[in-house]
């Protein structure tokens, strides 16, 4: 809690009074370390609204987004041809985040207008970018499929009401990062909204990376591929021999 207060104080001091309402926020952790026994991690995002003047009219809304690194993906659709199901059409999705979680203080559509959402890419469908000038009739089916599949995998979530706001000033939201997390620079975005418009936003980085033996093996596999391959084979042969010797000695056969 002490850390939280000092952080809050520092941020308050640094914040520039350009707008009437500002976000002062902090994260419970700025880095997630993936160890061999990593089972996921919880991140708490909290903060306060700093005002120079009394709060204007309209309901204050808070939207917090945690976004993983984006990668291009190929989405394929199966169709029945001559009695069997085969891949027919394919769409290249230029960028889809590996993880995308949204928490809001009220129903999403009440807080953010459609046009604002399209401009700032806040909602889940807006985060998936397809630029395709190909022959496929309805590419939106493909981006919807990406959303559906990732939602089922627990990688895309929308938690309406997940942000707790008290006295129109303090807010907090907690995010559960799943165990099947990809490495990279994650981003936490906080939006303050009023009457469907975004008043101000704040962005924080969360560095997700492997540590210890996970890091070492990953680097070895990429930097010393030959050595890594030979090591894999050596382990395989040693294990095969070990089991054989063990059974010979202990089961005498």
């Amino acid at each position, binding site marked *: 809690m002490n850390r939280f207060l000092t952080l809050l104080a520092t941020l308050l001091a640094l914040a520039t009074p350009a707008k009437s309402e500002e976000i002062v926020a902090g994260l419970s952790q700025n880095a997630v370390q993936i160890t061999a026994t990593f089972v996921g991690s919880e991140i708490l995002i909290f903060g306060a609204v700093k005002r120079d003047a009394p709060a204007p009219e309209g309901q204050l809304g808070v939207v917090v987004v945690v976004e993983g690194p984006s990668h291009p993906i*190929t989405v394929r659709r199966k169709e*029945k041809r001559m009695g*069997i199901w085969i891949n027919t059409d394919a769409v290249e999705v*230029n960028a889809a985040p590996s993880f995308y979680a949204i928490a809001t203080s009220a129903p999403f559509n009440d807080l953010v207008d459609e046009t604002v959402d399209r401009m700032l890419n806040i909602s889940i469908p807006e985060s998936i970018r397809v630029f395709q000038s190909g022959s496929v009739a309805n590419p939106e089916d*493909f981006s919807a*499929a990406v959303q559906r599949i990732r939602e089922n995998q627990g990688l895309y979530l929308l938690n309406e009401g997940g942000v707790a706001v008290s006295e129109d000033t303090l807010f907090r939201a907690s995010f559960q990062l799943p165990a099947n997390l990809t490495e990279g620079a994650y981003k936490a975005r906080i939006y303050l909204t009023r009457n469907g418009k975004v008043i101000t936003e704040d962005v924080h980085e969360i560095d997700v990376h492997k540590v210890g033996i996970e890091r070492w093996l990953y680097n070895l596999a990429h930097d010393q591929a030959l050595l890594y*391959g030979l090591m894999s084979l050596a382990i395989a042969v040693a294990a*095969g021999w070990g089991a054989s010797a063990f059974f010979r000695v202990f089961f005498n056969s």
Partner: protein
Amino acid sequence: MQIYLPIAEVSVNAFVLLGLGGLVGILSGMFGVGGGFLMTPLLFFIGIPPAVAVATEANQIVASSFSGVLAHLRRKTVDIKMGLVLQIGGLAGAFVGIQVFNYLKAIGQVDLLVKLAYVIFLGIIGGLMFIESLRALLKSRGGKVVSTRRKHNWVHNLPFKMKFRASGLYISAIPPLLVGVVVGVLAAIMGVGGGFVMVPAMIYILGMPTKVVVGTSLFQIILTTAFTTMMHATTNYTVDIALAVLLLIGGVIGAQIGTRIGVKLKAEQLRVLLAVMVLAVCTKLGLDLLLMPSELYTLGAGGH
């Protein structure tokens, strides 16, 4: 106990992997198959990315086959000479197979053709083997002595004859070479060791005794999968050593148990069981193609 896999980038239960490895190891030791054609779909199912599953599976097969071969070597049920001849053919076949694979990938239907090849091939092999071995099994139940199936066919009228002492064969080197080539091609295309094709081919085409077939097939699989592992490790970086270790601990123990079960079974029983297994995999793949999938869309790594 959850373990985060460094290359696959997913968290999985270590005991599930140990169990899977053990199960496939038993089959490996019993039948002389690597088990890749069973393990790879199982790994997909628990959420391992396909590229990592295929590459790591090759590494695990090295371990369980090595374990199995050592057990067979002590029983003198490995025909090393035959294994080497098959291997020469296999390497040539693998080379051709990789070219075919790249061609299929270029026209964009590699998945389908591989699956169709599997279904047709497994269906024929499994069906024929099942009928033949069931007949042999019933005959032996009836009290008659089963004649060793060593007929003189076209295989015995070819030049370059070689003596394969462990198999008790004196045949031309051409059929084993050709079998090796065909299996090599299939192995490269399907990403498996090819044991389930090799074993029936050795029994029915080459006429090798069933007991020798298992050890020899394992011997041949070690080299093929070791080569595959290195290829994947150096070009795609998809071998997950943590995953491999968990699978192979189960696998090597399973292989030892499987070998012991295998020697207690009669040759006909072994063949019936292998035929049933091949038919089961064939049915599963066939249904995948015929039934409507619950999710019509699939996600793959992007890029061109």
